[in-house]
């Protein structure tokens, strides 16, 4: 029996991939559930559980399930299951809601096929269904998918390559998967989430280690096989260790961003937002965060470098070390009155502690009054939902990270819409942006999409909907006994072999 023991970036607690956008929940769901369609490494949507056909007018999508699909409890996968799964997902996911808004019908058309009909063309439809981030669209048996969207599903029964071992699940500690012997891989070579998901081990165990030092020690001591995130500063320890290797598996990496609160001074004033942006330097932030320049990339493109929509309009100051003088001047011009910037600093998330510290220093240098308030990440996520005045329980600025696929498409990027109270935390009201997003959504050709994306890039930089602070990469490390590990935005365990 072969078992891969892996330490992932955090502990799994929430199981339902429709309830939360937490990455670990999604990673878990990709093991257990399968998707209708999937993205390959060229950002192209490929069939996975179902092949699809789009009508000429772009209004009708027909999905045909491939043969041999079975739930882990033995049941057949039916169109009804898929329809229920899609409907539940549409209630929660941004992309799903856009589809729902244009949906005419979603109905079974046979024993193994069903059809989605739209009222107007929506070229983003397949991409939304294939995207591996935000809320990915997973197929579940109907009885699970009929759970209300804000209540967790009671069981983990999917049709994916691995089965969830309920008895051994310890929330936050350990998840165990068994190979799904009944799984019939799709055709074609494995590429990201598309192609054959060929499981070559009997079991996979994810264990959580709260201390980076401990997990590295464990890897070096041969107690685990795979470590998803190695702090870059610690890579020198791995160098020259026989039997171990490390590599960045998600070549697109992450972006780190700062988000301001548009409702309260001083950041309700675009000039002051602009001044803050001018003060910040991607290189400073990334150096503090990562250290080794091989593992970060100063990059002005809000949709990420090396992605289809890579533009860098308006990002000069960010990528060239910041422009404190200009920031000072602009702040002066805007008549900044010293209103403190309440900057929320998470103390318990390693990848988010450095940004506020570096930013605080830069903002102070530019003339801002900064009130940095440390708190644990959960307090931060609670507090950022508060629209109150920063002086009593609200906030002005916080930082967070995304994996690049979460921001690389304008429609997936949740920070963009400027719909006031309905917008993401920070609540910008930005009709210009909304217009640009509509343009993008209805653009049929890639060229049109690119044009719209470029304008969105410029608008973000001008209006400072958020501050894009560059890209960084996380090396993973594993033992030589594992082979077949492939690149993907997050680790996948199909195709991986373990010797001995």
């Amino acid at each position: 029996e072969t078992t891969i023991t892996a330490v992932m970036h955090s502990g799994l607690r929430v199981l339902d991939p429709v309830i939360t956008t937490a990455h670990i929940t999604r990673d878990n769901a990709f093991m257990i559930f399968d998707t209708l369609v999937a993205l390959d490494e060229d950002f192209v949507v490929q069939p996975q559980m179902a092949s699809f056909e789009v009508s000429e007018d772009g209004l009708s999508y027909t999905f045909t399930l491939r043969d041999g699909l079975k739930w882990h409890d033995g049941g057949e996968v039916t169109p009804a299951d898929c329809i229920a799964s899609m409907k539940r997902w549409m209630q929660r996911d941004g992309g799903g809601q856009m589809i729902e808004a244009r949906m005419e019908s979603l109905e079974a058309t046979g024993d193994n096929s069903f059809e989605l009909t739209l009222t107007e063309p929506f070229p983003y439809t397949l991409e939304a269904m294939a995207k591996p981030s935000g809320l990915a669209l997973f197929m579940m048996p109907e009885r699970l998918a009929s759970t209300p969207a804000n209540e967790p599903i009671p069981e983990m029964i999917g049709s994916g390559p691995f089965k969830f071992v309920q008895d051994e699940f310890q929330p936050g500690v350990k998840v165990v998967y068994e190979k799904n012997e009944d799984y019939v891989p799709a055709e074609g070579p494995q590429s990201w989430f598309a192609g054959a998901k060929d499981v070559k081990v009997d079991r996979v165990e994810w264990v959580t280690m709260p201390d980076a030092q401990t997990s590295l020690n464990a890897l070096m001591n041969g107690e685990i096989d795979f470590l998803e995130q190695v702090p870059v500063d610690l890579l020198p320890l791995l160098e020259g260790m026989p039997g171990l290797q490390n590599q960045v598996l998600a070549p697109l990496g992450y972006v780190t961003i700062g988000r301001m609160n548009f409702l309260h001074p001083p950041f309700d004033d675009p000039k002051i937002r602009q001044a803050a942006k001018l003060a910040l330097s991607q290189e400073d932030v990334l150096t503090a965060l990562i250290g080794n320049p091989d593992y970060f990339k100063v990059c002005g493109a809000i949709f990420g470098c090396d992605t289809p929509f890579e533009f860098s309009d308006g990002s000069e100051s960010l990528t060239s070390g910041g422009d404190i003088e200009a920031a000072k001047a602009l702040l002066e011009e805007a008549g900044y009155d010293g209103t403190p910037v309440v900057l929320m600093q998470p103390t318990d998330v390693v990848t988010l502690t450095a940004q506020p510290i570096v930013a605080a220093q830069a903002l102070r240098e530019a003339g801002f009054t900064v009130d940095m308030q440390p708190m644990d990440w959960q307090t931060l996520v609670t507090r950022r939902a508060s629209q109150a005045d920063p002086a009593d329980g609200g906030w002005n600025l916080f930082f967070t990270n995304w994996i690049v696929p979460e921001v690389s498409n304008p429609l997936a990027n949740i920070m963009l819409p400027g719909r006031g109270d309905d917008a993401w935390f920070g609540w910008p009201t930005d009709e210009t942006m909304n217009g640009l997003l509509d343009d993008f959504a209805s653009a049929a050709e890639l060229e049109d999409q690119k044009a719209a994306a470029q304008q969105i890039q410029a608008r973000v930089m001008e209006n400072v909907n958020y501050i894009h602070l560059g890209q960084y990469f996380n090396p993973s490390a594993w033992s030589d006994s594992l082979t077949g590990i492939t690149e993907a935005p997050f680790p996948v365990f199909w195709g991986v072999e373990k010797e001995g």
Partner: protein
Amino acid sequence: MPVYFLRRVLAAIPVMLVVAVFVFLLLRLTPGDPAAVLAGDMATPEQLEQIRASLGLNDPLYVQFLRWMGDLLRGDFGTSLISNQPVLDLVADRMWPTIWIALITITLSVIVAVPMGVVAAWKHRSWIDHLVMTFSVLGFSIPVFVIGYLLIKLFALDLGLLPVQGYVAPSEDLPGFAARAVLPALTLASIYIALIARMTRASLLDVLGEDYVRTARAKGLAERRVLFRHALRNAAVPVMTVIGTGFALLISGVVVTESVYNIPGLGRLTVDSIFARDYPVIQALILLTSGIYVLVNLAIDLSYSFLDPRIRY
């Protein structure tokens, strides 16, 4: 004895009630929102509101409290908001590592610390005494995690004698369990040994000045007998007391030790739950640890009557 026992158990009820009210209010009156934790980064305010309502977090506080109390009386500790598992299952899963480590630590500490304290008291003001005292002050002065790191570096990495982390149940793999339990127990024991050695010494010093020790010597007994038969048992009550109150220290140490050695125990479960605002789990766990503390100290009080026949309940 039974009456006393009953009285003590009854007396524990208001204590537990205080704990319950305190924890409940602490959790509800301060910021933090399990719904936000649950929904993740990309959730919109509207989705948060829905989740909050479905978790019953929008009900008035007293309603929530009474509901919790009612459930408790029926033996229902609730369900984790985050992982949606019954709290009792979570606790049952995570209990054993903590219990094992704690038991080993206490045993180890007592075995090491009591003789240390006895020798120090006996050789009062000699170099052995100074050594023991220095060690025990040091035990109080170095943070647990630093001790943990040092032990890992020495025994696991440099000498390669023991694994650096993890836990396996003793029923599955006894040698594996033992190998993984040694370092955490040693780490935890560092404070505990210091505490017990110190108290043993102090209380023995007191006892050695008592008349009956002089009587024992006047009888011509050997020094070893005077020390162990006459003095130690009389010194035992304060030592037991410190073992009991030190239990609280142990729980604190467990939290850190479980992090350093990656032991899936109750300490980490509590910390994780606090960070995740998983109210039912936090409430149950703090109530549980407090209850254990109360019980341990009750057991220790009862043990006094075995140590000292004058104490009768």
